[in-house]
Protein backbone atom coordinates (compact mmCIF):
# COMPACT_ATOMS: atom_id res chain seq x y z
CA UNK A 1 0.00 0.00 0.00
CA UNK A 2 1.22 3.48 -0.83
CA UNK A 3 2.20 5.81 2.03
CA UNK A 4 -0.71 8.05 3.09
CA UNK A 5 -0.50 11.67 1.96
CA UNK A 6 0.86 14.38 4.26
CA UNK A 7 -1.21 17.60 4.46
CA UNK A 8 0.73 19.48 1.76
CA UNK A 9 0.09 16.65 -0.68
CA UNK A 10 -3.63 16.93 -0.07
CA UNK A 11 -3.80 20.71 -0.56
CA UNK A 12 -1.37 23.19 -2.11
CA UNK A 13 -0.49 26.36 -0.26
CA UNK A 14 -2.89 29.14 -1.26
CA UNK A 15 -2.95 32.79 -0.12
CA UNK A 16 -6.48 33.96 0.65
CA UNK A 17 -5.86 37.33 -1.05
CA UNK A 18 -5.19 35.57 -4.37
CA UNK A 19 -8.60 33.85 -4.56
CA UNK A 20 -11.83 35.21 -6.03
CA UNK A 21 -14.16 36.24 -3.20
CA UNK A 22 -16.93 33.87 -2.12
CA UNK A 23 -20.48 35.28 -2.25
CA UNK A 24 -23.39 34.47 0.03
CA UNK A 25 -27.00 34.68 -1.13
CA UNK A 26 -28.85 38.02 -0.91
CA UNK A 27 -27.33 40.60 1.39
CA UNK A 28 -25.77 38.05 3.70
CA UNK A 29 -22.05 38.55 4.35
CA UNK A 30 -21.09 36.30 7.23
CA UNK A 31 -22.05 32.89 8.57
CA UNK A 32 -22.01 32.34 12.31
CA UNK A 33 -21.46 28.60 12.78
CA UNK A 34 -22.16 27.25 16.25
CA UNK A 35 -20.78 23.82 17.10
CA UNK A 36 -21.87 22.11 20.31
CA UNK A 37 -19.78 19.12 21.41
CA UNK A 38 -21.48 16.29 23.32
CA UNK A 39 -19.16 13.51 24.40
CA UNK A 40 -18.86 10.31 26.37
CA UNK A 41 -16.01 10.04 28.83
CA UNK A 42 -15.55 6.38 29.72
CA UNK A 43 -14.73 5.99 33.43
CA UNK A 44 -12.50 3.03 32.53
CA UNK A 45 -10.07 5.31 30.65
CA UNK A 46 -8.00 8.42 31.48
CA UNK A 47 -10.30 11.45 31.44
CA UNK A 48 -10.01 13.75 28.40
CA UNK A 49 -9.35 16.95 30.39
CA UNK A 50 -8.39 17.75 33.95
CA UNK A 51 -9.47 20.75 35.95
CA UNK A 52 -8.13 19.72 39.30
CA UNK A 53 -4.82 17.85 39.26
CA UNK A 54 -4.75 15.05 41.83
CA UNK A 55 -2.61 15.58 44.94
CA UNK A 56 1.03 14.83 43.94
CA UNK A 57 0.06 15.54 40.31
CA UNK A 58 -0.18 11.87 39.29
CA UNK A 59 -2.84 10.77 36.77
CA UNK A 60 -4.93 8.35 38.79
CA UNK A 61 -7.53 5.79 37.68
CA UNK A 62 -10.41 5.86 38.17
CA UNK A 63 -10.60 9.65 37.87
CA UNK A 64 -14.03 10.14 39.37
CA UNK A 65 -13.75 13.88 39.88
CA UNK A 66 -13.19 14.58 36.17
CA UNK A 67 -15.72 12.01 35.10
CA UNK A 68 -18.20 13.92 37.28
CA UNK A 69 -16.95 17.28 35.98
CA UNK A 70 -17.88 16.17 32.45
CA UNK A 71 -21.06 14.42 33.55
CA UNK A 72 -22.35 17.72 34.96
CA UNK A 73 -22.44 19.02 31.40
CA UNK A 74 -24.68 16.15 30.29
CA UNK A 75 -26.97 16.32 33.33
CA UNK A 76 -27.23 20.11 33.74
CA UNK A 77 -25.12 22.23 31.38
CA UNK A 78 -26.56 20.93 28.11
CA UNK A 79 -30.08 22.01 29.14
CA UNK A 80 -28.86 25.58 29.34
CA UNK A 81 -27.69 25.18 25.72
CA UNK A 82 -30.99 23.66 24.55
CA UNK A 83 -32.93 26.49 26.13
CA UNK A 84 -30.72 29.18 24.63
CA UNK A 85 -30.76 27.83 21.07
CA UNK A 86 -34.50 27.16 21.15
CA UNK A 87 -35.09 30.74 22.24
CA UNK A 88 -32.81 32.03 19.47
CA UNK A 89 -34.23 29.72 16.81
CA UNK A 90 -30.71 28.47 16.02
CA UNK A 91 -30.11 24.85 15.01
CA UNK A 92 -26.42 24.30 15.73
CA UNK A 93 -24.14 21.56 14.52
CA UNK A 94 -23.83 18.86 17.15
CA UNK A 95 -20.38 17.32 17.22
CA UNK A 96 -21.56 14.00 18.63
CA UNK A 97 -19.67 11.05 19.99
CA UNK A 98 -21.96 8.33 18.59
CA UNK A 99 -22.11 6.68 21.99
CA UNK A 100 -24.22 9.58 23.33
CA UNK A 101 -27.14 7.96 21.48
CA UNK A 102 -26.73 4.97 23.80
CA UNK A 103 -25.50 6.49 27.09
CA UNK A 104 -27.40 9.78 26.98
CA UNK A 105 -30.41 8.90 24.87
CA UNK A 106 -32.44 11.70 26.50
CA UNK A 107 -29.89 14.33 25.43
CA UNK A 108 -29.38 12.98 21.91
CA UNK A 109 -33.14 12.76 21.34
CA UNK A 110 -33.56 16.40 22.38
CA UNK A 111 -30.93 17.52 19.87
CA UNK A 112 -32.54 15.39 17.15
CA UNK A 113 -36.03 16.65 17.94
CA UNK A 114 -34.82 20.25 18.02
CA UNK A 115 -33.51 19.78 14.47
CA UNK A 116 -29.79 20.08 15.22
CA UNK A 117 -27.33 18.76 12.63
CA UNK A 118 -25.48 15.64 13.82
CA UNK A 119 -21.81 15.67 12.82
CA UNK A 120 -19.69 12.55 13.34
CA UNK A 121 -17.23 12.90 16.25
CA UNK A 122 -15.94 9.35 16.81
CA UNK A 123 -17.66 6.72 18.91
CA UNK A 124 -16.37 8.05 22.23
CA UNK A 125 -13.84 10.65 23.35
CA UNK A 126 -10.13 9.75 23.01
CA UNK A 127 -7.35 10.43 20.47
CA UNK A 128 -7.97 8.71 17.13
CA UNK A 129 -4.31 7.63 17.04
CA UNK A 130 -5.11 5.04 19.71
CA UNK A 131 -7.98 3.41 17.79
CA UNK A 132 -7.01 -0.20 16.95
CA UNK A 133 -9.30 -0.20 13.86
CA UNK A 134 -10.04 3.32 12.74
CA UNK A 135 -12.12 2.38 9.69
CA UNK A 136 -14.36 0.18 11.83
CA UNK A 137 -14.74 2.91 14.46
CA UNK A 138 -15.72 5.47 11.79
CA UNK A 139 -18.25 3.07 10.27
CA UNK A 140 -19.69 2.24 13.67
CA UNK A 141 -20.01 5.93 14.56
CA UNK A 142 -21.74 6.76 11.27
CA UNK A 143 -24.06 3.76 11.58
CA UNK A 144 -25.13 4.59 15.15
CA UNK A 145 -25.84 8.23 14.27
CA UNK A 146 -27.67 7.30 11.05
CA UNK A 147 -29.85 4.80 12.86
CA UNK A 148 -30.65 7.23 15.66
CA UNK A 149 -31.47 10.28 13.55
CA UNK A 150 -32.69 8.56 10.37
CA UNK A 151 -30.18 10.58 8.36
CA UNK A 152 -26.56 9.93 7.45
CA UNK A 153 -24.20 12.61 8.84
CA UNK A 154 -22.53 14.81 6.22
CA UNK A 155 -19.69 16.07 8.42
CA UNK A 156 -17.00 14.81 10.76
CA UNK A 157 -14.76 16.27 13.44
CA UNK A 158 -12.04 14.12 14.97
CA UNK A 159 -12.08 13.77 18.77
CA UNK A 160 -9.91 16.71 19.87
CA UNK A 161 -9.54 17.25 16.07
CA UNK A 162 -7.13 14.32 15.97
CA UNK A 163 -6.33 12.62 12.67
CA UNK A 164 -3.76 10.16 11.48
CA UNK A 165 -2.40 10.67 7.96
CA UNK A 166 -4.91 8.23 6.47
CA UNK A 167 -7.99 9.58 8.31
CA UNK A 168 -9.21 11.79 5.40
CA UNK A 169 -9.10 8.76 3.07
CA UNK A 170 -11.08 6.65 5.53
CA UNK A 171 -13.64 9.41 6.09
CA UNK A 172 -14.20 10.01 2.37
CA UNK A 173 -14.54 6.24 1.98
CA UNK A 174 -17.24 6.24 4.67
CA UNK A 175 -19.23 8.87 2.77
CA UNK A 176 -18.26 11.92 4.85
CA UNK A 177 -18.46 15.12 2.79
CA UNK A 178 -16.88 17.73 5.04
CA UNK A 179 -14.47 17.79 7.98
CA UNK A 180 -13.75 20.44 10.60
CA UNK A 181 -10.27 19.25 11.59
CA UNK A 182 -8.32 21.53 9.25
CA UNK A 183 -8.40 24.93 10.95
CA UNK A 184 -6.03 26.41 8.38
CA UNK A 185 -8.22 28.92 6.55
CA UNK A 186 -11.18 31.32 6.83
CA UNK A 187 -12.92 29.65 3.86
CA UNK A 188 -13.94 26.13 2.92
CA UNK A 189 -11.28 24.32 0.86
CA UNK A 190 -11.10 21.07 -1.09
CA UNK A 191 -8.52 18.45 -0.15
CA UNK A 192 -7.52 15.30 -2.02
CA UNK A 193 -8.14 11.82 -0.69
CA UNK A 194 -7.75 8.40 -2.28
CA UNK A 195 -11.56 8.25 -2.28
CA UNK A 196 -12.28 11.57 -4.01
CA UNK A 197 -12.47 15.14 -2.73
CA UNK A 198 -13.26 16.16 0.83
CA UNK A 199 -14.28 19.68 1.87
CA UNK A 200 -12.75 21.37 4.91
CA UNK A 201 -14.91 23.87 6.80
CA UNK A 202 -13.30 26.54 8.99
CA UNK A 203 -13.92 25.12 12.45
CA UNK A 204 -12.01 26.83 15.23
CA UNK A 205 -9.54 26.21 18.00
CA UNK A 206 -9.34 29.95 18.71
CA UNK A 207 -13.03 30.54 19.54
CA UNK A 208 -13.27 27.30 21.43
CA UNK A 209 -13.85 26.97 25.14
CA UNK A 210 -11.34 24.12 25.53
CA UNK A 211 -8.19 26.07 24.56
CA UNK A 212 -9.51 29.29 26.13
CA UNK A 213 -10.78 27.97 29.45
CA UNK A 214 -9.08 24.58 29.97
CA UNK A 215 -5.65 25.23 28.41
CA UNK A 216 -5.11 29.00 28.61
CA UNK A 217 -7.11 29.52 31.83
CA UNK A 218 -8.76 32.76 30.77
CA UNK A 219 -11.49 34.32 32.88
CA UNK A 220 -15.10 33.43 32.08
CA UNK A 221 -15.93 36.72 30.36
CA UNK A 222 -13.04 36.33 27.92
CA UNK A 223 -15.13 33.99 25.76
CA UNK A 224 -17.40 36.97 25.07
CA UNK A 225 -14.54 39.43 24.61
CA UNK A 226 -12.56 37.26 22.19
CA UNK A 227 -15.66 36.37 20.21
CA UNK A 228 -16.55 40.04 19.79
CA UNK A 229 -13.01 40.82 18.62
CA UNK A 230 -13.01 37.86 16.22
CA UNK A 231 -16.48 38.63 14.89
CA UNK A 232 -15.75 42.36 14.45
CA UNK A 233 -12.70 41.64 12.34
CA UNK A 234 -14.33 38.96 10.20
CA UNK A 235 -17.43 41.12 9.81
CA UNK A 236 -15.32 44.02 8.55
CA UNK A 237 -13.54 41.72 6.09
CA UNK A 238 -16.85 40.23 4.97
CA UNK A 239 -17.57 43.48 3.14
CA UNK A 240 -15.34 42.12 0.36
CA UNK A 241 -15.65 38.36 0.72
CA UNK A 242 -17.98 36.02 2.58
CA UNK A 243 -16.64 34.96 5.97
CA UNK A 244 -17.43 32.23 8.44
CA UNK A 245 -17.12 32.76 12.18
CA UNK A 246 -17.18 29.45 14.05
CA UNK A 247 -17.71 29.06 17.79
CA UNK A 248 -17.18 25.72 19.53
CA UNK A 249 -18.60 25.03 22.98
CA UNK A 250 -18.88 22.18 25.47
CA UNK A 251 -21.64 21.83 28.08
CA UNK A 252 -19.25 21.06 30.94
CA UNK A 253 -17.39 24.33 30.26
CA UNK A 254 -19.69 26.99 28.77
CA UNK A 255 -22.76 25.38 30.35
CA UNK A 256 -21.46 26.25 33.83
CA UNK A 257 -23.61 28.77 35.74
CA UNK A 258 -20.78 31.32 35.88
CA UNK A 259 -20.11 31.12 32.12
CA UNK A 260 -23.50 30.75 30.46
CA UNK A 261 -24.38 34.45 30.54
CA UNK A 262 -21.34 35.29 28.45
CA UNK A 263 -22.42 32.76 25.84
CA UNK A 264 -25.89 34.31 25.77
CA UNK A 265 -24.39 37.77 25.34
CA UNK A 266 -22.41 36.58 22.32
CA UNK A 267 -25.64 36.00 20.40
CA UNK A 268 -27.09 39.33 21.58
CA UNK A 269 -24.04 41.03 20.11
CA UNK A 270 -23.83 39.06 16.85
CA UNK A 271 -27.54 39.42 16.12
CA UNK A 272 -27.34 43.21 16.25
CA UNK A 273 -25.54 43.02 12.88
CA UNK A 274 -27.07 42.95 9.41
CA UNK A 275 -26.31 40.10 7.05
CA UNK A 276 -25.54 37.38 9.60
CA UNK A 277 -26.65 33.82 8.80
CA UNK A 278 -26.80 31.19 11.53
CA UNK A 279 -26.01 28.16 9.43
CA UNK A 280 -24.87 24.74 10.48
CA UNK A 281 -22.14 22.69 8.80
CA UNK A 282 -24.43 20.95 6.35
CA UNK A 283 -25.89 24.27 5.17
CA UNK A 284 -22.40 25.71 4.72
CA UNK A 285 -21.36 22.60 2.82
CA UNK A 286 -24.41 22.78 0.52
CA UNK A 287 -23.72 26.44 -0.26
CA UNK A 288 -20.06 25.80 -0.96
CA UNK A 289 -20.82 22.70 -3.03
CA UNK A 290 -22.89 24.91 -5.35
CA UNK A 291 -20.06 27.41 -5.77
CA UNK A 292 -17.26 24.87 -6.13
CA UNK A 293 -19.18 22.33 -8.21
CA UNK A 294 -16.61 22.43 -11.00
CA UNK A 295 -13.58 21.95 -8.73
CA UNK A 296 -15.32 19.17 -6.83
CA UNK A 297 -16.19 17.42 -10.08
CA UNK A 298 -12.63 17.79 -11.35
CA UNK A 299 -11.30 16.27 -8.12
CA UNK A 300 -13.51 13.16 -8.37
Amino acid sequence: MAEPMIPNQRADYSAIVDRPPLKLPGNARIIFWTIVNYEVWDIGKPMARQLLPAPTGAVLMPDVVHWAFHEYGMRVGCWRFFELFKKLGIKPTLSANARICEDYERVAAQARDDGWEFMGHAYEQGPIHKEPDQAAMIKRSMDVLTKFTGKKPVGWLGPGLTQTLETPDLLAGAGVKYIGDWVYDDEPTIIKTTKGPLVTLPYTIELNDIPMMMVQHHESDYLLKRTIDQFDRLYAESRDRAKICALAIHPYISGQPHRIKYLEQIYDYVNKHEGVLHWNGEQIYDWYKGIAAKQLKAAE
Partner: protein
Amino acid sequence: MNYAKPNVGMLPHDRIDYSAIVNRKPLKLPGKARMVVWTITNVEEWDPTQTMPRTVLTPPAGGSPMPDIPNWCWHEYGNRVGFWRLLQVYDEFKIPGVMNINGVAVNAFPDLTKACVDRGWEFIGHGYTQRNMQKVENEREDIRKSAEVIKKATGQKPRGWLGPGLTETWETPDILSEEGYDYVADWVIDDQPVWLKTRNKPILNIPYTQECNDVAMMLIQHHKASEFYERAIDQFEQIYKDAKDSARVMAISVHPYIMGAPHRAKYFRKIFKDIRAKKDVLFWNGSQIADWFLKVGPKPPQ
Protein backbone atom coordinates in the same frame (compact mmCIF):
# COMPACT_ATOMS: atom_id res chain seq x y z
CA MET B 1 33.66 32.89 38.50
CA ASN B 2 35.36 30.28 36.37
CA TYR B 3 33.31 27.87 34.31
CA ALA B 4 34.60 24.94 32.28
CA LYS B 5 35.17 26.18 28.75
CA PRO B 6 33.52 24.37 25.87
CA ASN B 7 35.80 22.49 23.46
CA VAL B 8 34.56 24.54 20.52
CA GLY B 9 33.19 28.07 20.69
CA MET B 10 33.09 30.37 23.73
CA LEU B 11 31.26 31.08 26.95
CA PRO B 12 29.16 34.27 26.94
CA HIS B 13 31.61 36.33 29.02
CA ASP B 14 34.47 35.44 26.71
CA ARG B 15 32.51 37.17 23.96
CA ILE B 16 31.34 40.24 25.89
CA ASP B 17 32.36 42.00 29.11
CA TYR B 18 29.79 43.19 31.59
CA SER B 19 28.83 46.80 30.95
CA ALA B 20 26.26 49.04 32.70
CA ILE B 21 24.17 51.00 30.20
CA VAL B 22 24.36 54.18 32.32
CA ASN B 23 28.15 54.23 32.17
CA ARG B 24 28.56 54.25 28.39
CA LYS B 25 29.23 57.10 26.00
CA PRO B 26 25.79 58.29 24.82
CA LEU B 27 24.60 57.13 21.41
CA LYS B 28 23.03 59.75 19.15
CA LEU B 29 20.45 59.17 16.45
CA PRO B 30 20.08 61.48 13.44
CA GLY B 31 18.02 64.65 13.90
CA LYS B 32 15.92 64.79 17.02
CA ALA B 33 15.18 61.06 17.11
CA ARG B 34 15.67 59.45 20.50
CA MET B 35 14.86 55.81 19.90
CA VAL B 36 14.35 53.17 17.22
CA VAL B 37 11.57 50.58 16.97
CA TRP B 38 12.10 47.53 14.82
CA THR B 39 9.48 44.94 14.11
CA ILE B 40 10.28 41.33 13.31
CA THR B 41 7.76 39.06 11.60
CA ASN B 42 8.57 35.38 11.99
CA VAL B 43 7.52 32.98 9.25
CA GLU B 44 8.07 29.29 9.69
CA GLU B 45 7.19 26.10 7.92
CA TRP B 46 6.16 23.37 10.31
CA ASP B 47 7.00 19.90 9.03
CA PRO B 48 3.75 17.90 9.33
CA THR B 49 5.75 14.70 9.89
CA GLN B 50 7.51 16.06 13.03
CA THR B 51 6.23 16.98 16.48
CA MET B 52 4.74 20.49 16.27
CA PRO B 53 6.93 23.22 17.84
CA ARG B 54 3.90 24.61 19.74
CA THR B 55 0.30 23.55 20.29
CA VAL B 56 -2.90 25.44 21.04
CA LEU B 57 -4.97 22.34 21.66
CA THR B 58 -3.74 19.26 23.45
CA PRO B 59 -5.33 15.91 22.48
CA PRO B 60 -7.91 14.31 24.75
CA ALA B 61 -6.09 12.75 27.70
CA GLY B 62 -2.82 14.45 26.72
CA GLY B 63 0.31 13.24 24.91
CA SER B 64 1.82 14.27 21.54
CA PRO B 65 0.09 12.34 18.78
CA MET B 66 1.71 12.06 15.36
CA PRO B 67 0.52 13.41 12.99
CA ASP B 68 -0.85 16.49 14.73
CA ILE B 69 -3.17 17.90 12.07
CA PRO B 70 -5.07 20.51 14.15
CA ASN B 71 -1.93 22.19 15.39
CA TRP B 72 -0.26 22.02 11.98
CA CYS B 73 -3.35 23.71 10.52
CA TRP B 74 -3.41 26.28 13.32
CA HIS B 75 0.06 27.38 12.27
CA GLU B 76 -0.56 27.12 8.53
CA TYR B 77 -3.51 29.52 8.95
CA GLY B 78 -0.96 32.25 9.64
CA ASN B 79 0.67 31.82 6.25
CA ARG B 80 -2.58 31.50 4.28
CA VAL B 81 -4.65 34.18 6.06
CA GLY B 82 -3.06 35.83 9.12
CA PHE B 83 0.04 37.27 7.43
CA TRP B 84 -2.10 39.39 5.11
CA ARG B 85 -3.68 41.13 8.08
CA LEU B 86 -0.27 42.03 9.51
CA LEU B 87 0.83 43.25 6.09
CA GLN B 88 -2.09 45.71 5.98
CA VAL B 89 -0.84 47.24 9.24
CA TYR B 90 2.76 47.54 8.01
CA ASP B 91 1.50 49.17 4.80
CA GLU B 92 -0.89 51.52 6.56
CA PHE B 93 1.77 52.89 8.92
CA LYS B 94 4.70 52.58 6.50
CA ILE B 95 6.68 50.28 8.77
CA PRO B 96 9.82 48.79 7.19
CA GLY B 97 9.35 45.05 7.57
CA VAL B 98 11.89 42.51 8.75
CA MET B 99 11.10 39.00 7.54
CA ASN B 100 12.65 36.44 9.82
CA ILE B 101 12.10 33.32 7.81
CA ASN B 102 13.04 29.64 7.76
CA GLY B 103 14.92 28.74 4.56
CA VAL B 104 12.32 26.16 3.57
CA ALA B 105 9.49 28.68 4.07
CA VAL B 106 10.92 31.06 1.44
CA ASN B 107 9.80 28.72 -1.33
CA ALA B 108 6.87 27.09 0.48
CA PHE B 109 4.91 30.36 0.59
CA PRO B 110 5.85 32.12 -2.66
CA ASP B 111 3.07 34.74 -2.49
CA LEU B 112 4.22 35.78 0.94
CA THR B 113 7.87 36.02 -0.12
CA LYS B 114 6.91 38.05 -3.18
CA ALA B 115 4.79 40.50 -1.15
CA CYS B 116 7.82 41.19 1.08
CA VAL B 117 10.30 41.44 -1.80
CA ASP B 118 7.97 43.87 -3.63
CA ARG B 119 7.96 46.09 -0.53
CA GLY B 120 11.72 45.97 -0.03
CA TRP B 121 11.56 44.17 3.33
CA GLU B 122 14.77 42.99 4.88
CA PHE B 123 15.07 39.17 5.05
CA ILE B 124 17.09 37.67 7.87
CA GLY B 125 18.18 34.07 8.38
CA HIS B 126 16.09 32.01 10.81
CA GLY B 127 17.46 28.50 10.35
CA TYR B 128 16.85 26.39 7.31
CA THR B 129 14.03 24.62 9.20
CA GLN B 130 12.26 25.41 12.49
CA ARG B 131 14.52 23.26 14.66
CA ASN B 132 16.76 23.86 17.70
CA MET B 133 20.25 24.75 16.36
CA GLN B 134 21.71 22.24 18.80
CA LYS B 135 19.81 19.47 17.00
CA VAL B 136 20.77 20.55 13.50
CA GLU B 137 23.15 18.03 11.97
CA ASN B 138 25.55 20.51 10.41
CA GLU B 139 25.20 24.01 11.78
CA ARG B 140 27.41 25.72 9.22
CA GLU B 141 25.60 24.03 6.37
CA ASP B 142 22.24 25.12 7.80
CA ILE B 143 23.39 28.74 8.18
CA ARG B 144 24.86 28.73 4.68
CA LYS B 145 21.77 27.18 3.08
CA SER B 146 19.53 29.72 4.81
CA ALA B 147 21.57 32.53 3.23
CA GLU B 148 21.58 30.95 -0.21
CA VAL B 149 17.84 30.47 -0.45
CA ILE B 150 17.21 34.05 0.70
CA LYS B 151 19.74 35.41 -1.79
CA LYS B 152 18.10 33.47 -4.59
CA ALA B 153 14.62 34.78 -3.74
CA THR B 154 15.48 38.39 -2.89
CA GLY B 155 18.73 39.04 -4.78
CA GLN B 156 20.46 39.87 -1.51
CA LYS B 157 22.39 37.83 0.99
CA PRO B 158 20.92 38.25 4.49
CA ARG B 159 22.99 40.42 6.85
CA GLY B 160 21.14 39.36 10.00
CA TRP B 161 20.37 36.13 11.82
CA LEU B 162 17.97 35.02 14.53
CA GLY B 163 18.13 31.37 15.54
CA PRO B 164 14.95 29.25 15.60
CA GLY B 165 13.59 29.82 19.11
CA LEU B 166 16.78 31.94 19.63
CA THR B 167 18.76 28.72 20.08
CA GLU B 168 22.54 28.76 19.73
CA THR B 169 25.41 26.37 20.25
CA TRP B 170 28.62 27.69 21.90
CA GLU B 171 29.89 28.21 18.37
CA THR B 172 26.98 29.93 16.60
CA PRO B 173 28.35 33.53 16.64
CA ASP B 174 31.70 32.26 15.30
CA ILE B 175 30.08 30.49 12.39
CA LEU B 176 27.79 33.44 11.64
CA SER B 177 30.77 35.79 11.49
CA GLU B 178 32.72 33.39 9.29
CA GLU B 179 29.76 33.02 6.96
CA GLY B 180 29.58 36.78 6.46
CA TYR B 181 26.60 37.74 8.62
CA ASP B 182 26.86 41.29 10.04
CA TYR B 183 24.52 40.94 12.99
CA VAL B 184 22.69 38.48 15.21
CA ALA B 185 19.67 39.09 17.46
CA ASP B 186 19.73 36.02 19.72
CA TRP B 187 21.29 37.79 22.68
CA VAL B 188 18.45 39.59 24.45
CA ILE B 189 21.00 41.23 26.72
CA ASP B 190 20.68 45.01 26.33
CA ASP B 191 18.66 47.99 25.05
CA GLN B 192 21.53 48.98 22.71
CA PRO B 193 23.48 47.07 20.06
CA VAL B 194 26.62 45.40 21.43
CA TRP B 195 29.69 43.73 19.98
CA LEU B 196 30.28 40.00 20.45
CA LYS B 197 33.80 38.64 19.99
CA THR B 198 34.15 35.61 17.74
CA ARG B 199 37.16 33.60 16.58
CA ASN B 200 36.74 35.52 13.32
CA LYS B 201 35.90 39.25 13.38
CA PRO B 202 33.38 40.49 15.99
CA ILE B 203 29.67 40.38 15.18
CA LEU B 204 27.05 42.91 16.20
CA ASN B 205 24.09 41.91 18.38
CA ILE B 206 20.90 43.97 17.97
CA PRO B 207 18.32 44.12 20.80
CA TYR B 208 15.58 41.62 20.12
CA THR B 209 12.81 40.76 22.60
CA GLN B 210 11.33 37.86 24.52
CA GLU B 211 9.08 40.26 26.40
CA CYS B 212 7.18 41.92 23.52
CA ASN B 213 6.92 38.62 21.72
CA ASP B 214 3.60 36.97 20.95
CA VAL B 215 4.90 33.43 21.48
CA ALA B 216 5.89 34.19 25.05
CA MET B 217 2.86 36.34 25.85
CA MET B 218 0.04 34.51 24.14
CA LEU B 219 1.20 30.88 23.99
CA ILE B 220 3.27 30.50 27.14
CA GLN B 221 1.84 33.08 29.53
CA HIS B 222 -1.71 32.83 28.10
CA HIS B 223 -2.48 36.52 28.33
CA LYS B 224 -5.58 37.89 26.69
CA ALA B 225 -5.09 39.53 23.30
CA SER B 226 -5.26 43.14 24.52
CA GLU B 227 -2.29 42.55 26.83
CA PHE B 228 -0.02 42.47 23.79
CA TYR B 229 -0.96 46.07 23.04
CA GLU B 230 -0.79 47.19 26.64
CA ARG B 231 2.62 45.67 27.26
CA ALA B 232 4.04 47.07 24.03
CA ILE B 233 2.94 50.57 25.02
CA ASP B 234 4.25 50.19 28.58
CA GLN B 235 7.55 48.94 27.16
CA PHE B 236 7.64 51.79 24.66
CA GLU B 237 6.91 54.53 27.19
CA GLN B 238 9.66 53.37 29.52
CA ILE B 239 12.28 53.00 26.78
CA TYR B 240 11.27 56.38 25.36
CA LYS B 241 11.86 57.95 28.79
CA ASP B 242 15.15 56.07 29.25
CA ALA B 243 16.36 57.25 25.83
CA LYS B 244 16.41 60.94 26.79
CA ASP B 245 20.22 61.14 26.84
CA SER B 246 21.30 58.08 24.90
CA ALA B 247 19.47 56.27 22.10
CA ARG B 248 17.82 52.91 22.71
CA VAL B 249 16.22 50.24 20.55
CA MET B 250 12.89 48.54 21.08
CA ALA B 251 11.86 45.34 19.29
CA ILE B 252 8.41 43.92 18.65
CA SER B 253 8.25 40.33 17.48
CA VAL B 254 5.18 38.65 16.01
CA HIS B 255 4.06 35.49 14.23
CA PRO B 256 1.27 35.52 11.64
CA TYR B 257 -0.49 32.54 13.24
CA ILE B 258 -0.74 34.37 16.55
CA MET B 259 -1.21 38.13 16.06
CA GLY B 260 -2.73 37.52 12.60
CA ALA B 261 -5.77 35.79 14.16
CA PRO B 262 -8.89 37.92 13.61
CA HIS B 263 -9.46 38.55 17.31
CA ARG B 264 -5.87 39.71 17.89
CA ALA B 265 -5.13 41.77 14.76
CA LYS B 266 -6.63 45.00 16.05
CA TYR B 267 -4.37 45.07 19.10
CA PHE B 268 -1.35 44.74 16.84
CA ARG B 269 -2.59 47.67 14.73
CA LYS B 270 -3.23 49.88 17.78
CA ILE B 271 0.44 49.67 18.78
CA PHE B 272 1.55 51.35 15.56
CA LYS B 273 -1.30 53.81 15.56
CA ASP B 274 -0.08 55.07 18.94
CA ILE B 275 3.68 54.94 18.39
CA ARG B 276 3.61 56.34 14.83
CA ALA B 277 2.16 59.54 16.28
CA LYS B 278 5.53 60.25 17.96
CA LYS B 279 7.74 62.39 15.74
CA ASP B 280 11.02 61.50 17.43
CA VAL B 281 10.78 57.74 17.03
CA LEU B 282 12.37 55.99 14.05
CA PHE B 283 11.06 52.79 12.50
CA TRP B 284 14.07 51.00 11.06
CA ASN B 285 14.95 47.51 9.97
CA GLY B 286 17.89 45.56 11.41
CA SER B 287 20.37 46.64 8.74
CA GLN B 288 19.57 50.30 9.29
CA ILE B 289 20.19 49.86 13.02
CA ALA B 290 23.47 48.05 12.32
CA ASP B 291 24.69 50.69 9.83
CA TRP B 292 23.90 53.50 12.25
CA PHE B 293 25.70 51.76 15.12
CA LEU B 294 28.74 51.06 12.92
CA LYS B 295 28.97 54.81 12.31
CA VAL B 296 28.33 56.20 15.81
CA GLY B 297 28.98 53.33 18.19
CA PRO B 298 32.20 52.09 19.78
CA LYS B 299 34.75 50.38 17.54
CA PRO B 300 34.64 46.58 17.53
CA PRO B 301 36.83 44.95 20.20
CA GLN B 302 40.22 43.63 19.07
